[in-house]
């Protein structure tokens, strides 16, 4: 079972964003918008890249601030998102110290990692690894 997508070495990241495109493609979209994993430069390409994805915390900050219990603790770490309960307040996104949660602007719902590991299949350079239990 996949526990989480681990950033093994962001120094090897080329910034191609194929992981991001994989995440949205899994949902039937073509775009960088709506991805649950994000790659961005650290102040320009010359300074390198950073990859941000949910680290499946054992004690997730996001869960505590949700006023409607839309984020339920996941056994292997991280949270399970109950979209139907979510009111789109964005508190989870604010609370995550890693900024691993972004809001989907169209739907006004948080983009919570599904821990499916699909993104990893499209990383050609070993930046991502699946941590399993």
């Amino acid at each position, binding site marked *: 079972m996949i526990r989480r997508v681990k950033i093994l070495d962001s*120094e090897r990241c*080329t*910034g*191609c*964003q*194929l992981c991001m*495109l994989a995440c*949205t*493609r899994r949902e*039937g*979209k*073509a*775009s*960088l*918008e*709506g991805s649950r994993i994000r790659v961005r430069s650290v*102040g*320009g*390409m*010359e300074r*390198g*890249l950073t990859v941000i994805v949910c680290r499946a915390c054992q004690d997730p900050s996001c869960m505590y601030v949700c006023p409607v219990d839309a984020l339920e603790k996941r056994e292997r770490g991280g949270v399970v998102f109950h979209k139907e309960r979510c009111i789109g307040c964005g508190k989870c996104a604010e609370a995550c110290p890693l900024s691993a949660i972004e809001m989907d*602007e169209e739907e006004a719902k948080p983009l919570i990692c599904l821990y499916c590991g699909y993104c990893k299949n*499209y990383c*050609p*350079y070993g930046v991502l690894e699946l941590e399993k239990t």
Partner: protein
Amino acid sequence: MDSYLKRVLIINLTNHSYQIEERQNYFKEYIGGVGAGIKLLREFLDPNVDPYHPDNVIVFSIGALTGKFPMVSKVVSLFKSPHNGLLGESHAGGRSAIAMWQAGYGSIVIKGASQIPIYVTINGNQVRFKEARALWDIADTETVGRILRERDGISGLRTIMRIGRGGERLISYANVTTETYRHFGRLGLGAVFGSKKLKGLIISGKRSISIENRKEYQHLYDEIFELCTSSPVKKYHELGTSENILPLNALHALPTRNFKETSFENAESLSGENLAMNYLGRRIACSHCPVGCIHLAILREKYPDDPYFYKTTLVSYDYEPIYSLGSVLGIKSVEDFLKLMITVEKVGIDAITAGVVLAWVTEAYAEGLIGENETGGLSPCFGDTETYLQMIDRMMEPSNEFYRLMGKGVEALAGRYGGKDFALSYFGNELSGYHTGPGSHLTHITGARHSHLDSAGYSIDQKIYKDGKYPGPKEMAQKLFEEEAIRQVLTSLVICLFARNVYVPERIGRCLRLFGWDFNEAQIFELGRKILFEKNQLKREMGFDMENFNLPKRAVETPSPLGSIDESYIRETVKHFKTFLFNPFSSQ
């Protein structure tokens, strides 16, 4: 069909206004990119306009497959070139293609000229014209990029195109730089930006499309992803294009010291292998490209006033600049090559042309065609990096006619001082680094951009070495024509040419059909010929006649691996090429 693609953003810099229009057919029938761009130039550009006049028009276009498949990662720009007065066409990657696609435009047309320096931000439907007087004259394009990045404040994906001092000073081969390491290079888009007082262009947006046929799409996507990440495409990741230095040197096809020689004693040191092992600091990629061919070298330069502190700079390198700022100038060390590279990047000028210009200057000085009066006391000689660095600096603040002409290329210099025999350019565009045989020179003559990328004659030459079969002029012309025609399809889509063997017509057809375009293989070939024909018509109206080329004596005299270039063979082949171009459907 992708519903946003037909949208064309038309920006008028004269009155800082914009409008959004639709051109369905340019994207349905011409599939975008070069195809759509030519149609838009037809609409908006007077072919006889002075390239620096406000009426010159810049078109940026993406294509039918942008955002959908790997390595469909480029934007094409079209304009009237200030470098050779003909059609300017230049492609770049970085984040530009996806940013334009997510902003919701198939093309962006820029016309007019601003009274004061500005930069323009496009965020979806919002277009803003922003004050840039304080950004004019900043020494380094990287600094400009950083300022725009911080000031613009928009989160998410964006492209930040900007010019350096080269563009501001109307160096006719100035670049537009995007994402620090990618360029709209060669034919002077940067100077057109400069003439319009357009310092930068930032594009972002958040749109996406829903995939209808998910299973089939996924299947085709995986097929392409697999091909892009396996041999032979992956070689562009490992050593990158600089892997060609040693093989071309061994073949005696690496132009050295202004094409006087074809092998270089320092090739080992400037090789892709040495750069990778001892200087490679990072590899980066354009958006949606699993290859990641952009190689960044680290240069550490010691501060003179501190025994233990070094300035560390990352700079990109490729085969072409290693030739133009390396072998063709007789540069001895990697450090010297990187210093030159950093300097041309800072000021934002084309690395190939800058090197070929310096090589001509070096030889003209040795021949006595120019002297210290012209150079202002400098004595350029091959391998003298410090002098070359000073000359690039002086070009930015030209104190005399000579330095002004350096900013216009070798034809302008040779026109004034003589030395045409060793001025290496065709139709005003300086030669790239392949003295492989007649094919390479023919590509530069016949190709619409007069660039090695138009029809890759260097690879036809290399095939001749292997097969031992020398094609006659007509066969050679046909090979070049077919290759250039099919590349019109690739550059309309706008696919990176490194993926040309992945995106074969049959596969392109499948990709297009999945998104509502109905093209079979034969129609794809036909489209390529049609676009090439239309491009040529436009160039003719700009005064272009292919047979009117000048073959520099140096190119003929310095033996290639296929022997000396036979001028009559070249002339005959060009004649045949012209016939194909004018009757694009007769060769089928």
